[in-house]
């Protein structure tokens, strides 16, 4: 290849535009990704030189009860959070999709928790869940229910975190569904009406199939996010009481910062990646059966 003056100048311009991003991404994303893979094979406390242990970190992980319980708690969180946020989010979107006056105000109100910081939201709900002085148990008391100790009770701590998370993300899921609903061409409803379909029939014959790409997207996104649950757990319970809300990312954080187990923390993070990856992959396969793209 002959590189003339013009060719050099062209490559110079490409370098000017691409290199800042490429170098940054290389240093702060690609390099850490590679290092993280390599680190899984080592034991390293940052004080003494790293020791090659091959698969030992993964063996330890499999034998570690804390890992299994944090996985179980993460799955518990997902099992509570995902169905609730999807069902309520969809229901609200359906109501909002009726052309009612003033809907914009409601949409804005529901969206405010989405943009609020998790730190503030988690602290707010920690206060609301306060067994003695909190708002929730007071309201429950008004209708004759003696509320539990919530985040201080191993049985109720995870439900409290799930409620908080649904509250925060409801506006987000609702927005996704609302955009999906508004994307359904009216023509299909008109056609269904001509065929004599009632509103229930229309919902199942038109809305459900045509909304399925959105449902798939919302489901995938909320699953990915909920595997990574951390902020609210750390602030509300720090994994307690008695380890009842210890989740995967919290274990990664603790191993990397408090226990100085860099290799083990990396191994945990790749297990998290594999979980997210395989669940997403599985969904991609299953979706062929129920998601309709027209």
């Amino acid at each position, binding site marked *: 290849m002959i590189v003339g003056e013009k060719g050099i100048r062209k490559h110079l311009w*490409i370098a*000017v*535009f691409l290199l*800042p*991003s490429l170098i*940054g991404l290389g240093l*702060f*994303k690609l*390099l*850490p*990704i590679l*290092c*993280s893979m390599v*680190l899984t094979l080592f034991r390293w406390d*940052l004080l003494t030189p790293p020791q090659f242990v091959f698969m030992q970190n993964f063996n330890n992980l499999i034998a570690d009860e804390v890992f299994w319980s944090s996985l179980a708690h993460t799955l518990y969180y997902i099992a509570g959070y995902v169905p609730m946020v999807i069902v309520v989010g969809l229901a609200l979107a359906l109501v*909002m999709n*009726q*052309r*009612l006056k003033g*809907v914009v105000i*409601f949409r804005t*109100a*529901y*969206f*405010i928790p*989405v*943009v*609020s*910081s998790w*730190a*503030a*939201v988690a*602290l*707010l*709900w920690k*206060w*609301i869940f306060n067994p003695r*002085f*909190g708002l929730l148990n*007071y309201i429950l008391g008004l209708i004759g229910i003696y509320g539990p100790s919530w985040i201080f009770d191993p049985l109720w701590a995870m439900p409290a975190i799930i409620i908080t998370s649904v*509250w925060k993300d409801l506006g*987000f899921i609702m*927005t996704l569904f609302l*955009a999906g609903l508004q994307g359904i061409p*009216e023509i299909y*409803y008109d056609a269904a*009406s*001509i065929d004599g379909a009632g509103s229930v029939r229309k919902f199942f014959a038109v809305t459900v199939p045509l909304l399925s790409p959105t449902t798939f997207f919302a489901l995938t996104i909320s699953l990915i*996010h909920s595997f990574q649950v951390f*902020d609210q757990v*750390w602030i509300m319970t720090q994994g307690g009481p008695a380890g009842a809300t210890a989740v995967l990312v919290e274990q*990664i*954080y603790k191993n*990397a*910062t408090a226990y100085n187990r*860099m290799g083990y923390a*990396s191994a945990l*993070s790749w297990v*998290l*990646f594999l979980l997210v990856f395989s669940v997403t992959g599985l969904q991609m396969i299953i979706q062929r059966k129920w998601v309709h793209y027209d």
Partner: protein
Amino acid sequence: MIEREKLSNPKAATKTLFYMVLILFSFFMIIPFLWMISTSLKLNQYVLSIPPRLIPEKITITNYLRLTEIFPMTRIVFNSLFVAVTMTTGQVFVSSMAAYAFARMKFRGKSAIFLLYLATLMIPFQVIITPLFILMRYLRWTNTYQALIFPGIFNAFGTFLLRQFLLPLPRDLEESAFLDGANHFMVYWRIILPLAKPALATLAVLAYMEAWNSFLWPLMVIRDTGRMTLPVGLATLHGRYLTEWNLVMAGAVITVVPMIIVFLLAQKYFVKGIAQSGLKQ
């Protein structure tokens, strides 16, 4: 047309029911925020009261004043603003330059490099935090603004979002500019960026929100309260004044209000960006 009206105008009874559902949920969404504000305006002796009162007996701004005295709150607010603004500016700038290269320039290995960018999007942030944390220690960046800002600037998502926007723009725009002797930077700055304003705004609000609300990463690299941003500062404040909920809620108000204001001003871009990308805090 008659059918259409039936669809979009539910009967009065259904309408009332719908409004009731919306209003009921508004209570569920808004009352916690009112409780936050109300608690932040209470005097110490009224916070732990039975029954709790949504409207304070006596309204006071003491908690806000005390925050600036017993805690480096002013500094923390400044840190949050500084980090969010520099990170957003950096990310928009770096991403749009790379997006320009990917969408408007021809070079060998372009698709391979782009694929590499996309691949990084599949890796959750938790995978890289351990090595990134070690890298920060080696660079002696712990407790610095750099540690908060730089890893956030370089993000394949922004490049991807803007590239998708730039790709379909017609070529003749820049071709006539090149004939007039313009160079790539002039085309990027004067022709492409102005056209990409909606996409840039979407990326900017998402980046700003991410920087403002980010928790796990600042928690790892910042120990010194003087360098903290609001979320970690707030968690630290709570750790010190466990039962003084009036103080903590005042901190929470300071944390959420600036973000809510930005949201109300740029609502369109938030909703669009979040609905498109599925990004949220």
